Every structure is written in structure tokens, then in C-alpha cells.
């Protein structure tokens, strides 16, 4: 069904015109799941009967002419750190096996109020902290561009499933880049708005001052629609029209960030330079902008994240350390060895970082920068996974709490997606989505699909 490649607005149009029913649409998506999820391991929980029951209720609403909201009949999949009433929340961990919330997280309740069909729960790194692990109750998700490769994380199932065409929209969480990372690895779009714009109520926390909830999709229009539904301020339009051109837009290109140590692959650097030229051709004034080396951001992020995560996990780390995957255990234990002084020092650095980012937004409307410095690495190489995690420029905007979007910027010679980020100042989410739509229209990448 070609409609599955189209954006959500097109699917809704077909539902409204009666060309197909929500049940038929749902069955078409489920057929993709049944065919490809055995390769991709996106779902840790999927209740086909419950999903079809939701679709039948949606169908009845269409027949009565009482469409519920902006997403009536559209399947959405949820990262398994976010509560869905009646479905388990395991955070992909033995620790939470048997945990079944009876209330939706706020973000899920908002989706339901718009008529969305909640498909199921998606693979994540354990508690959104570990990495791909093979000593957990569920297998790690795999990259649809090459199933031997890492799909990024921690919203792994979300990135892999959107890219693989298993669902049109997924909701993930992003503490050090965990929405934008799988978007980069899998060649889809990952977006986070400003801090706290999407409620974290009902989301298992990793690091509450860094955690953001955000959507992943294949079309900017789908991200804009999801943002309108999820944003607590609900002030932006549900569509993000591309700009006719970018004349008058000042873009700061953080080129030094990926040419220092660590350094991006040549292919990534070339893709970013090409993006700068494309934006210039569209009329923007693109200048190289300066910032601190990436390890400064990364270390500040890790000290804050590890300290806050330790505070949450310390009872289990003391009593049940064997129930974590080794990679998660090592990561979470790091927090035991930071003092209150270390945490406060990192928060002091964070204030400096936010001031610096806001200064950049005084000079530039937009920042253009790398997302991942490398294409996705092999999933079964823990050293390479660990190495590439410190080569990602996404943590900056978790620290600053400002909006950022990750998008595809090319394809490596090995057939894996290359990526970039755009970032804007507080409360400029809609402008950021319009820029993203302009980039989407100007380049061929968003139309590429993995060779499943």
C-alpha cells in the first residue's frame, strides 16, 4: 500500500474520504510489522487484538461523522519507558518485568485524545541508559539499512520501526540525544522541543533535568502534527510549511565541532559542508560559528546524567545489580562515584553552556551542526558502540534545553544514513520545523528507504 509511504495527513485524508477504514489501515501497518519485525526487533509488546479493537472504535467514529481529533485512526508506537495503560512498562529490563501501569503517561493520553491508536511498546536501551545488549529479556532492535548495524539509541525500536515502515510515528525520549540518535542512524527525523514542553509525567526518568520526550517520523509534516498534539503550550500550527527561500536567515555552522577531536568521518564532514552550500543556495547567510570542543559538553552531560540516574537506580543497584545488563550496570554505577560537589560543578558548567548557546542565538537564527560523527556502527561491537557514543553532538541541546531536530543528510558508501542537526532558540519550534520542511523539500534524502 503506497499510502504507508505517504505522510499522516495523506492517510487521514483517505480515512476521511472513506477510501479505506481505520481497520484496513491498521491491518496494512500490522502486515509490515509481521513481515519485518522479526528482522528488526522493534516491539517488546504488541497486542494485535487490542490494536484492532481500537481501530474498530475509530472506524465507528468515522462512520458516525464524529472524528475524535487530529490523529484519529493513526497508529503510533511508544518507547517502553513511557506508560501506556494496560501495557507493560519494562524499560527493556528484568528489573521491571511484571510492571503494568493502569494509567497513560500524559503524552500518551494526549495522543489518545486525538484519536491515535496505541500500537505497543518499543525496544529501548535498558532504562534508556545502556546500549545494545544481548543479556536482557528482549533482543536489541536492529538497523533496517543493515541489520548487522546499530539502530542508535536509546529510542532504538522507534528509529528502526519508523525507518522500516512499521508505523508512521513513534514517541521516544531524549536525555543525551536518544531521539535524534536513532533518527541519525536510521535516516529518519527526530525532534525535541524545549525542555518540559512535552510532559514527562508517566515517563520513567533517566535524568529528570535532561530528559525530553519527542517524536520520530519520516516526514516533517508528521513531526509538526505530533508536536501540535503533544506540546503542553499547544500554540504552534499543526502544519509546518516550507519557506519559499531562506533569504534573511542567519545560520551559524558549527563546523569546528566535528573537525576537532573527536573528528567526524570524511563522508559526514562532506555531507555537512554540502548542507551548508544548499542552505546558502536557498538564500541563507551561512557563517562558521565557534563553540567549545564536544568533550566539554559530553562530560558535563554525563556527570549530570549519571548523578541523577544514580539517585533513581541506587536501591536496585545495591540489591539487584545482577538484574541489569552489564553495559547498563557499568553506566549507572558511574553515578555512585560523583559527589554532590561534582554534580553542582557540572550544573554550573551547564549554566555557562546555556548562556553560550543563547549568545549564539543572538547572532544566528539557526545552528547547523553534526548529529552523529559516524554512520551507525556494528551492533555487536561494544567498543565501537562506546566510542561512537562520545562522537555525537546532540548533548548540547539537552544541556541548554533548547529545541533541536535531527535529519538525514546523505548516504555513506556503505549504504548507511548520514545526518545533521538544526537548532533554534527557545520557543522557536515552529520556525525550526519550517526550516526542516525546507531542507526536506530541497534534498532527496527523506524519500530514501532502507533496502528491506
Amino acid at each position, binding site marked *: 500500500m503506497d499510502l504507508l509511504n505517504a505522510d499522516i495527513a495523506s492517510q487521514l485524508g483517505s480515512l476521511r474520504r472513506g477510501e479505506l477504514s481505520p481497520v484496513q489501515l491498521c491491518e496494512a501497518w500490522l502486515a509490515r510489522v509481521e513481515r519485518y519485525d522479526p528482522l528488526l526487533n522493534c516491539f517488546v509488546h504488541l497486542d494485535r487484538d487490542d490494536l484492532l479493537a481500537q481501530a474498530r472504535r475509530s472506524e465507528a467514529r468515522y462512520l458516525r461523522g464524529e472524528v475524535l481529533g487530529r490523529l484519529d485512526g493513526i497508529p503510533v508506537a511508544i518507547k517502553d519507558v513511557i506508560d501506556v495503560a494496560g501495557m507493560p512498562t519494562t524499560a527493556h529490563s528484568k528489573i521491571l518485568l511484571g510492571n503494568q501501569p493502569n494509567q497513560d503517561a500524559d503524552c500518551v493520553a494526549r495522543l489518545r485524545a486525538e484519536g491515535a491508536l496505541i500500537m505497543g511498546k518499543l525496544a529501548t536501551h535498558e532504562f534508556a541508559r545502556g546500549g545494545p545488549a544481548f543479556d536482557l529479556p528482549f533482543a536489541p532492535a536492529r538497523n533496517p539499512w543493515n541489520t548487522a548495524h546499530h539502530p542508535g539509541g536509546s529510542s532504538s525500536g522507534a528509529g528502526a520501526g519508523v525507518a522500516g515502515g512499521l508505523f508512521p510515528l513513534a514517541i521516544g525520549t531524549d536525555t543525551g540525544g536518544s531521539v535524534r540518535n536513532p533518527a541519525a542512524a536510521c535516516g529518519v527525523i527526530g525532534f525535541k522541543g524545549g*525542555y*518540559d514542553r512535552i510532559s514527562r509525567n508517566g515517563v520513567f526518568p533517566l535524568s529528570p*533535568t535532561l530528559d525530553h520526550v519527542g517524536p520520530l517520523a519520516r516526514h516533517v509534516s508528521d513531526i509538526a502534527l505530533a508536536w501540535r498534539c503533544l506540546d503542553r503550550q499547544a500554540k504552534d500550527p499543526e502544519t509546518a510549511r516550507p519557506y519559499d527561500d531562506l533569504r534573511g536567515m542567519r545560520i551559524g555552522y558549527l563546523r569546528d565541532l566535528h573537525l576537532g577531536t573527536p573528528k567526524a568521518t570524511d563522508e559526514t564532514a562532506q555531507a555537512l559542508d554540502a548542507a551548508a552550500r544548499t542552505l546558502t543556495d536557498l538564500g541563507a547567510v551561512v557563517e562558521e560559528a565557534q563553540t*567549545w*570542543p564536544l*568533550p*566539554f559538553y559530553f*562530560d*558535563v552531560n*554525563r*556527570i549530570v546524567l*549519571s548523578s541523577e540516574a544514580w539517585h533513581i537506580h*541506587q536501591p536496585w*543497584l*545495591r*540489591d539487584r*545489580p*545482577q538484574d541489569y545488563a*552489564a553495559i547498563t*550496570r*557499568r*553506566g*549507572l*554505577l*558511574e*553515578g*555512585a*562515584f*560523583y559527589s554532590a560537589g*561534582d554534580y*553542582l*560543578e*557540572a*550544573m*554550573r*558548567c*551547564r*549554566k*555557562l553552556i*546555556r*548562556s*553560550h548557546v543563547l549568545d549564539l542565538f543572538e547572532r544566528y537564527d539557526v545552528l547547523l551542526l553534526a548529529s552523529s560523527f559516524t554512520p551507525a556502527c556494528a551492533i555487536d561491537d561494544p567498543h565501537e558502540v562506546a566510542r561512537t557514543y562520545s562522537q555525537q553532538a546532540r548533548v548540547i541541546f539537552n544541556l541548554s*534545553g533548547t529545541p533541536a531536530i535531527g535529519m538525514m543528510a546523505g548516504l555513506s558508501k556503505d549504504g548507511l544514513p548520514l545526518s545533521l542537526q538544526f537548532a533554534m532558540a527557545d520557543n522557536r519550534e515552529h520556525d525550526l520545523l519550517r526550516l526542516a520542511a525546507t531542507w526536506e523539500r530541497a534534498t532527496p534524502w527523506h524519500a530514501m528507504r532502507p533496502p528491506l
Partner: protein
Amino acid sequence: MSDADTALPQTAWQQEALSQGLHKALAEHADDVRSARDAALARRGTLNAMLAALPEQDQQRLAAQIGETPWIF
């Protein structure tokens, strides 16, 4: 009490782990505990080095924050 808890002399990293109540982890996953402690130590070190290398203007901005609330938003 585990062997790790009672063995003497305890190294600094073992003492740190025990002070955090990580008796079981130390007994069963000592390599992970040591690796986590080494990572924290290394990260503190590199961050301090990077802070010392910040431009003077940034150092001053950082110093001015002493005593301010750590909350940023």
C-alpha cells in the same frame, strides 16, 4: 558480609564502593564497579582540565555563578 566487604586492606575504589552500599555489586561485579569508578575519575579529570583551558571570559562567567542556584531553566 561479602569477602569484598571484609577483606583488608581495601583499595580506595573498593572503599568508595562500600561507602555507597555497593556490597553486592562489589562481590559479584567487581570489574564493573572498578570500571565505573575509573570512568568517573577520568571524566572529573578531563572536565577539570577543560575548565582550566577555558578562555578568561568564560572562566569569569563561571566564577560569577558560585553561590547561584544550580537550576538553569
